[in-house]
């Protein structure tokens, strides 16, 4: 088999790790709060700016900058929930979509206002591994590894802790859970914080590979949505698998043509699958 194709496939798998992490965050929020955060990728953008400014402008060590980014994005998640999501919780789904769409507008233009449209890079150059004549970017490998670890930790958190159990319970039946003595509003806040933290974590991983600019959310946002819808909105395992399917389409498509067309292919795949299986690949 062609060596470059193998490389493309491996890169696809590695990309899938980060996408899976983002899809997990979005799916968690959707499954629990039942609102689609269309601006989710733009929260990642904010996280990337936090890392950039802390590390490059203020000389904060990178690991600490990453931790601060994760914490501040968790806080941002809570703020977004309190200010924007909570007031529209009982509105029609389409209005919720539009409210978070307004947030997308706001975050992108506010970032443009503050930082301009320059592409900024944190300038960390990680080595490129050479394994049996295959070249693999170390940054992507880290992203993949951390993405997987993040997913496992989230899984354990949801399975093993009290609050995790409450979160799963709410996703199953939000009417009854209140009667069991679970404070819904607190769970929503915790979920938003976790969702924000996952976006912050993804920001750390993406900052190693990509330049930050106000519209970087547009590169990932639509793809993450596709993944979540394909896996079935709210279905975390489905989203996890779907992120690897989509990342393979993008990687292999990019190998045979160019990046834009590979994304086109992924979107067309999404549209067709929406017709064949409207509630996701793994819907019962």
């Amino acid at each position, binding site marked *: 088999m062609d060596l470059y194709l193998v490389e493309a496939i491996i890169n696809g798998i590695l990309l899938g790790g980060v996408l899976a992490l983002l899809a997990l965050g979005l799916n968690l929020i959707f499954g629990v709060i039942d609102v689609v955060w269309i601006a989710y990728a733009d929260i990642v953008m904010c996280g990337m700016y936090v890392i950039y400014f802390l590390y490059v402008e203020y000389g904060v060590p990178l690991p600490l900058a990453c931790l601060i980014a994760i914490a501040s994005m968790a806080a941002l998640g809570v703020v977004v929930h309190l200010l924007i999501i909570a007031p529209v919780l009982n509105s029609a789904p389409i209005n919720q979509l539009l409210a978070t769409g307004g947030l997308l507008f706001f975050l992108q233009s506010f970032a443009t206002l503050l930082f301009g449209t320059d592409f900024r890079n944190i300038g960390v150059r990680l080595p490129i591994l050479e394994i049996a004549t295959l070249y693999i970017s170390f940054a992507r490998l880290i992203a993949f590894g951390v993405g997987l670890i993040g997913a496992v930790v989230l899984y354990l958190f949801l399975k093993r802790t009290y609050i995790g159990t409450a979160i799963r319970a709410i996703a199953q039946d939000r009417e009854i859970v209140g009667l069991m003595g679970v404070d819904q509003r607190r769970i929503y806040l915790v979920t938003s914080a976790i969702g924000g933290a996952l976006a912050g974590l993804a920001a750390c991983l993406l900052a190693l590979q990509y330049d930050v600019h106000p519209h970087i959310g547009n590169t990932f946002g639509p793809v993450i949505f596709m993944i979540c819808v394909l896996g079935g909105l709210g279905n975390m395992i489905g989203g996890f698998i779907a992120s690897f399917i989509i990342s393979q389409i993008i990687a292999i498509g990019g190998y045979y043509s160019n990046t*834009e067309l590979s994304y086109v292919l992924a979107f067309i795949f999404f549209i067709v699958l929406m017709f064949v299986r409207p509630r996701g690949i793994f819907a019962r």
Partner: protein
Amino acid sequence: MSISRMVMLVGLAMFIAVPAFVPPYFLHLLIQILLWAFIYTAWALMGRFGFVSFGHGAFMGVGAYYEITPGIGIPLGIALSMLLAVVIGYPCFRLKVVEHYFALVTLALSQVVLLSLVAARDVTGGSLGFTQRAVGHSWYALQFPEKSYFYGISIVLWLIGLYVWQRIDHSISREALEAISEDEDAAAAIGIDVLREKLRVTLISAALTALGGAIFAQYMMYLNPETVSGIAVSLQIVFAVIAGGAYSMLGPTVGSLLTLSLTEGLRVWFGTNFIGAANTIYGILLILCIIFMPQGIVGALRGLKLRPSRTKAAAPAE
């Protein structure tokens, strides 16, 4: 009716006479407001029935990029746009992809068109955009150095948009579409051809949007995939209509007037040092609009009837 019609005619006459009195900058603004108002009206033809499409960026992009030689290009762009509408609309309506799932499918369509335009960079110039060759005053190439011609064209387009709105508003289709937006299954049960009604209004909406995109491109003389297609444009369309109101005939026009004068006003106010300022305020206003006027918006999209949210009602049944 006759008095209001006279007032309308007088108003229209004054409107048409505007180029004689205002400086070119305001004329430029007015043309843009009218062209966007036309596109927003086209979107609202669907949006008022709760079919929220994020795919109109796609229709506009196709229309805009296909009119390199307008005589052939505009009809071709419109035809292609309608074909796209059928390819997406038919399965969507057939398989009952509705509400936010419909929004997401059309969102994907927007991205497909945007990325295809960028990918075909040999022809379209990719992200760098595409500047048309100026040929001076020509009806065939639809290029006019004087703005007043485009002003006339945009008024005609805008009136066409309002006329189509009126026609649909006064037709039996409107009743059918309202019934469909209330409850598709019930509408089908009383003998409404759900698929046909939805597809027809989608086709009209897509065709008008493509026409608007084509004229817009012709006026600007410069095309960039980001400014005529993709998510950003689709969202812009949806938001402007919602700000203005999707339910009344002049709502989309008001939305266009509101958003463009806001953008321009803030641009003049802040100067070019603060590129994002206008859209930042715009974004905040949109969120506030949706939070504090949920009835207004639901009413606008669903026909002014207060109904309990569908998710709430459906939750116990699952």
